[in-house]
């Protein structure tokens, strides 16, 4: 087991390096540099040269990359162009808020998707299942930001039930509805696969009551992929957070990132991109390891 974890950790390293490379070089496609943000026409060109040298912007780009990488390893992502505060400080102030939003949403999604997915699988082909399929397609077709706008219109502006900003109710609701369809279908598919297995047929043949078959054997086995699901849905959860936090003014890392994009706050953009990617990679690793622990077949048979 530990060998497996170690192997996966080592595979992470080229992955992380690749992420840093892409992040750094994409950001440096930007025309101009930080001094472009000094917009006073009275500033003399010599001043700009001096400031550029102070910031190490006159060095070759490869050197700049390694300097950035070295600092990034210490979690030093430089200073925000807007507030002048350290990037890592602003991110760590906001990250907990995003994590709260994501965890509550994911928990609610699981709460709803597991029963619905299981029942759909058990009653495959029934009216319930068909309606569920159509409804989940509809949910998947709704743009997150539009849902957010419509909910804000109805529940904040027209009915006044919830405040329009700084409050978790609407953001969580929108995030849950957006993410529900995909996970429920996954649940359903995995439950269907389990129900088709040999040992289920054996249990039924042994005369076990249907409900016990479902609960004891099938359900437990269908729950295993949840950990994987968490890993797989992390990118979408983070992605949703960016838009939802912006619309509902939720002070999380997502809103910080979007406003950094609008203000061309490159150190912040790089910091958030890198951190989010690392979290996603770690989440996937956790999901894979968790899956491997639970399912011995995977441990031994797994190939890339």
């Amino acid at each position, binding site marked *: 087991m530990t060998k497996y974890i170690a192997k996966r950790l080592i595979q992470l390293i080229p992955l992380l390096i690749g992420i840093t490379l892409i992040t750094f070089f994409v950001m440096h496609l930007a025309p101009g540099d930080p001094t472009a943000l000094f917009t006073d026409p009275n500033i003399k060109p010599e001043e700009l040269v001096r400031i550029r040298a102070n910031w190490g912007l006159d060095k070759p780009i490869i050197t700049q990359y390694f300097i950035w990488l070295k600092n990034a390893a210490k979690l030093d992502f430089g200073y925000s162009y807007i507030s002048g505060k350290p990037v890592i400080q602003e991110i760590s102030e906001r990250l907990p808020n995003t994590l709260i939003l994501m965890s509550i949403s994911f928990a609610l999604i699981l709460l709803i998707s597991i029963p619905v997915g299981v029942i759909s699988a058990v009653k495959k082909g029934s009216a319930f299942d068909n309606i569920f399929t159509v409804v989940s397609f509809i949910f998947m077709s709704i743009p997150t930001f539009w849902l957010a706008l419509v909910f804000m219109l109805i529940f904040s502006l027209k009915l006044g039930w919830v405040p329009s900003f700084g409050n978790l109710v609407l953001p969580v609701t929108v995030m849950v509805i957006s993410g529900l369809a995909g996970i429920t279908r996954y649940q359903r598919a995995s439950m269907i696969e389990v129900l088709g297995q040999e040992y289920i047929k054996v249990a039924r043949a042994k005369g076990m009551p249907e409900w016990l078959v479902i609960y004891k054997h099938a359900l437990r086995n269908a729950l295993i992929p949840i950990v994987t699901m968490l890993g797989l849905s992390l990118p979408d959860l983070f992605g949703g957070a960016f838009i939802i936090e912006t619309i509902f003014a939720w002070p999380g890392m997502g809103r910080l*990132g979007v406003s950094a994009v609008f203000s061309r706050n490159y150190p912040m953009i790089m910091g958030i991109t890198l951190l989010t990617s690392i979290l996603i990679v770690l989440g996937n690793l956790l999901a894979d390891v968790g899956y491997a622990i639970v399912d011995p077949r995977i441990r031994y048979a797994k190939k890339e």
Partner: protein
Amino acid sequence: MLRKNKLFIFGLIILILFSLLAVFAQFIAPYDPAGIMENEIQGPSLRHIFGTDDLGRDVLSRIIYGGRVSLSVAVVAVAVALTLGILIGAIAGYFGGLIDELIMRFTDIMLSFPTIFLILAIQSVLTPNIYNVMIVIGATSWMGIARLVRGEFLSLKEREFVEAARAIGCSDLRIIFRHILPNSWPPVIVAGTLGMAGAILTESALSFLGLGVQPPMPSWGNMLMDSQAYLLDAPWMAVIPGLFIVLAVLSLYFVGEGLRQSLNPKER
């Protein structure tokens, strides 16, 4: 089988309808989408079926032209994604070994980024317009297709017809494009259809934030951006473009799902 699938038919009809609207926009739209017709916002009426926006422009006409923009962005973006994905996946799956390893590592790296933020970050570096939106969406959504194609190639390259082609001396390139690829169409078509659905959603989110299609060129997404300030006063500005997005994406999902079911008999 396909004919019996009611959802598939529904989706197909909507798609054909939208495509016709997009292609023949000039003839179907009642007014000039940029024309300022009224001096204030008006709600739906006989003159303006979907009302006007805050600049007095007819919403229905803008929806039709906006549909042309949103759909063409989706088509081109998916074309880019397919090109990249097929090329990358084919090379990885056919040659295997180290090349495969390297390519798959690169694919994993791209998959580790939160896509929407990566696109936002890239757009912050460029000056957003309809063309770079198409390319950027395509350049960040090829990964699923690449994996799919790679899988197909891995399984198909051991088959007899490939052996036969090698035996008569076909070059690798020829084998890839003339022999294996034509046999891996089905999942690729499905992926393309689903990809278009995703591209419409992504483009509308980008345009909504102001980093996609720039006004005054209408797109369903940037019409929603304009509607935000008028949510209470003119809800039709927000509701209608959103409904069209949902319809378009839903239709693509129905069509894609229908295709998937009919092309993969063992699935369901």
